[in-house]
């Protein structure tokens, strides 16, 4: 079964850090203040970040295992 993971549209990410704050797994980081990055290994696809993101640039996408 395919799993859902948070995917960030890096072009439109404003690097505000809202996603990082709500992530229960600490799977999101904003290296060098450029844009948010998801550690796909840690992401459980809960969608909290996608709901929080003020720019709505996070989507849950299915990734093949």
């Amino acid at each position, binding site marked *: 079964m395919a799993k859902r993971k948070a995917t960030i549209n890096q072009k439109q990410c*404003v*690097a*505000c850090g809202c996603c*990082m704050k709500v992530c229960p797994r600490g799977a999101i980081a*904003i290296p*060098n*203040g450029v844009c948010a990055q998801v550690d796909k290994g840690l992401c459980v696809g809960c969608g909290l970040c996608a709901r929080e993101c*003020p720019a709505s640039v996070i989507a849950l996408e299915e990734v093949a295992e």
Partner: protein
Amino acid sequence: MKQKKRWYDYLWIASLTYLILGFFNILFAWLELLCFFIPLLIAVIKGNKAYCNKYCGRGQLFSLVGGRFGLSRKKDVPQWIKSAYFRYGFLIFFFTMFFLMLWNTYLVFAGARDLRTTVTLLWTFKLPWHWAYHGTLFSDGVAQFAFGFYSVMLTSTVLGFVTMLLFKPRSWCVYCPMGTMTQLICKAKHTFSSRE
């Protein structure tokens, strides 16, 4: 899942206090210069957006009022607000108005103009604010800067509040000039350092 609160999760209290203090004595506006220089210094020296990510009291205030208290429609912001044109355009506009404010302050310092005890909301509406002015030990320009700077902060708070109601709680973060600028600095810094 509840995450452990840290000291900086309470910085919204400072933001709120600052706004309230401006109603009593306008000179407190000088304090908010910290919120101007700290994010820039963090971006320039450390090369990250820790200010937005952790310390921004205004963002916390919006997420508290819009999120916890539910004063937000929680809808997506329109596409044009996220566009680079709007974000950079707003940054340029904001800074043009900021330098205009500095110029007006200079005129008062230089004695070419009298102190105006008004707060200008949304760059247009002049609100009488004389009750918050009790004189200054220094030049009138010191007070003029306070009125000008408080105008900037109040305007951006009002804008942020409106977009909080209409869209997601922290919609302000999408077009916040400080956020755009610090991200720009970080991007530039990162591009140059990875080239070496």
